[in-house]
């Protein structure tokens, strides 16, 4: 028995956590120690089952949704039901799924369900001061009830589980992914845990990965582009009032809101967004990221690991090399690919291509961050010098850039690039926060101005595929009107209202395009790839390094 005195100030363990523990130790750790919780369909269906349980037809005394706790065991929970039958109390636990089958097909409880039912029985017994000799687990999918004896063996198993839970709570190491691959497809945390990616890293590539990571985006992004638009709240929906009228948008259909310029968002709407996990980002008219909210809690363990890792110079250098490698390689590959069929174009950019290739070959040996920065700069200069050559000779000359100008953009082409990078920045920012990382601590960029370094770091690997390529493509398809899509203010060039809407559509459509991630060989939208890479980055310092920034262009 664990005595109260041994527990000190340690918080009690929830019975549900013991259920997770017996399912998969990593699941227990992610939920209980790192406090990462993701509700999936099964979780909600299970909760509803507890609310809607079939009513009882007899007069037996019973208690439902009964809170139990024990200082002696250091455990708390809520038991589904306790009923008195033939003078003795029995604890009931309801499960949505099917039972386990023994060798001769006899119904059995799954180990995780069993420990849960045993824990409830033991806690009820202590609380009522009357013996509880049996627990019953009811499986609704196959209508089977499994009976469990609450004997010494059961109490011992409970004791062992509690001890194990306490050991894991003390540990700072995230346990490895489970060996039983069949558990993962049903696990609500698979999207965070990424078991198949880790197994790939462990060179189990021969086993076909079960592809758990969701492949497309389920909800929509709302862009507010005019200052006259006001987003308020009406119950569980957003009430958008603009010059063209009012519309209600169900909050469940939205994943983020971007306010471009000075559109209004009420505090009531912001509360709804925070409550429902919808990120809100504010950008300037020119597309520069100003601020963002995200309702994700700061995760202590994850951040401690991030701080520890990113104060390690060798690791920072390694991550920086891989980032610069990924970025420069995609610049090179894009120039090569886009000029493949046109000998004259290729010839005109052969010199920059050669210099970029030479820079790329030095990246992996770069001795420090400064020399990496030098190589990145050389490549960028040649890349932006070559980029205009990819533009068709049939386009309006006003759309041809004159080098790269950033703050402010000085031609139309650069205005498009800057606006795209701003939206990319906002996307990466809210994704990193959602994944639980601290944007302020990066590995390559230095903290300066308002731009969080980790966001700048991650943005690098997506500039070419998510902004440069769609911008060049759209210019070549003559999608821009040099007069009505832009506004010129002295030397500065901005997008007009029309132009901004087109640029948003261009970026958003790119995010829905499917791409086969070359490392996991799973097809998914670019929006998901950004999230996947962010999660793989977090794994660089959480026991599964080497997976980040392996995305490559074909």
């Amino acid at each position, binding site marked *: 028995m664990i005595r109260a005195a041994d527990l000190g100030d340690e918080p009690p363990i929830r019975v549900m956590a013991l259920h997770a523990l017996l399912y998969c130790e990593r699941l227990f750790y992610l939920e209980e120690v790192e406090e990462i919780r993701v509700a999936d*369909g099964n979780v*909600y269906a299970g909760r509803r089952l507890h609310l809607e349980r079939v009513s009882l037809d007899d007069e037996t005394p019973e208690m439902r949704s009964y809170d139990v706790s024990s200082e002696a065991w250091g455990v708390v929970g809520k038991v589904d039901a306790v009923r008195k039958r033939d003078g003795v109390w029995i604890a009931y636990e309801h499960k949505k799924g099917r039972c386990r089958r023994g060798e001769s097909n006899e119904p059995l409880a799954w180990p995780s369900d069993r420990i849960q039912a045993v824990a409830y029985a033991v806690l009820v017994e202590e609380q009522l001061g009357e013996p509880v000799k049996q627990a019953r687990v009811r499986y609704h999918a196959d209508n089977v009830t499994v009976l469990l004896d609450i004997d010494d063996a059961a109490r011992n198993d409970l004791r062992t589980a509690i001890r194990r839970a306490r050991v894991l709570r003390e540990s700072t190491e995230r346990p490895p992914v489970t060996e039983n691959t069949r558990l993962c497809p049903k696990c609500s945390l698979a999207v965070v845990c990424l078991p198949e990616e880790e197994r790939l890293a462990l060179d189990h590539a021969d086993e076909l990965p079960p592809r758990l990571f969701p492949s497309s985006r389920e909800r929509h992004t709302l*862009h507010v582009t005019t200052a006259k638009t006001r987003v308020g709240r009406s119950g569980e929906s957003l009430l958008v009032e603009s010059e063209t009228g009012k519309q209600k948008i169900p909050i469940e259909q939205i994943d983020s809101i971007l306010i471009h310029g000075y559109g209004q968002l009420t505090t009531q709407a912001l509360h709804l967004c925070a409550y429902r996990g919808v990120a809100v980002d504010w950008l300037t008219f020119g597309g520069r990221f100003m601020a963002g909210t995200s309702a994700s809690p700061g995760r202590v363990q994850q951040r401690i690991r991030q701080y520890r890792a990113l104060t390690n110079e060798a690791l920072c250098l390694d991550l920086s090399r891989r980032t610069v490698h990924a970025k420069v390689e995609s610049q090179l590959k894009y120039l090569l690919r886009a000029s493949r069929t046109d000998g004259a174009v290729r010839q005109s950019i052969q010199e920059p291509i050669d210099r970029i290739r030479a820079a790329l070959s030095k990246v992996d040996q770069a001795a420090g961050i400064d020399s990496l920065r030098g190589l990145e700069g050389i490549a960028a200069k040649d890349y932006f010098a070559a980029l205009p050559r990819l533009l068709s000779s049939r386009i309006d000359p006003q759309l041809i850039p004159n080098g790269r100008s950033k703050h402010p953009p000085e031609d139309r082409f650069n205005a498009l690039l800057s606006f795209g990078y701003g939206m990319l920045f906002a996307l990466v920012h809210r994704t990193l926060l959602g994944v639980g990382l601290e944007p302020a601590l990066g590995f390559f960029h230095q903290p300066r101005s308002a731009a969080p370094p980790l966001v700048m770091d991650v943005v690098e690997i997506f500039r070419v595929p998510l902004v440069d390529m769609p911008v060049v493509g759209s210019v070549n398809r003559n999608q821009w009107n040099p007069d009505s899509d832009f506004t010129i203010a002295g030397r500065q060039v901005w997008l007009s209202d029309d132009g901004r809407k087109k640029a948003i559509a261009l970026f958003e459509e790119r995010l*829905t395009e499917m791409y086969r991630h070359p490392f996991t060989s799973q097809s998914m939208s670019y929006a998901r790839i950004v999230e996947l890479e962010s999660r793989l980055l977090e794994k660089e310092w959480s026991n599964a390094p080497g997976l980040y920034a392996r995305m490559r262009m074909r």
Partner: protein
Amino acid sequence: MAEKSWHLITYDVRDPKRLRKVAKKLEGYGERLQYSVFRCRMDRLALEKLCWELAEIMAANDDLLVMPMCSRCAERVPLHSTGDQSAWAADPPTFRIV
């Protein structure tokens, strides 16, 4: 992740206060078509979440009817209906600009 599909949802709630809560909840998920008829485009996660949230509001003598519709059924709704029944078929774009 499961595909999204249309669901037609109707309800019969015995108490005005609960009725209002149920309607507000459904507005968070889809559009109201008629007085107590909604349509929601959802995947399984959203459906389970909605049903759980409604179960928390509704009482035992209230009724909820959820009719999942395949895409072919949904496309045929406008053929036999009056009023504006547009946009039953297509998945809306993943973004909106206002």
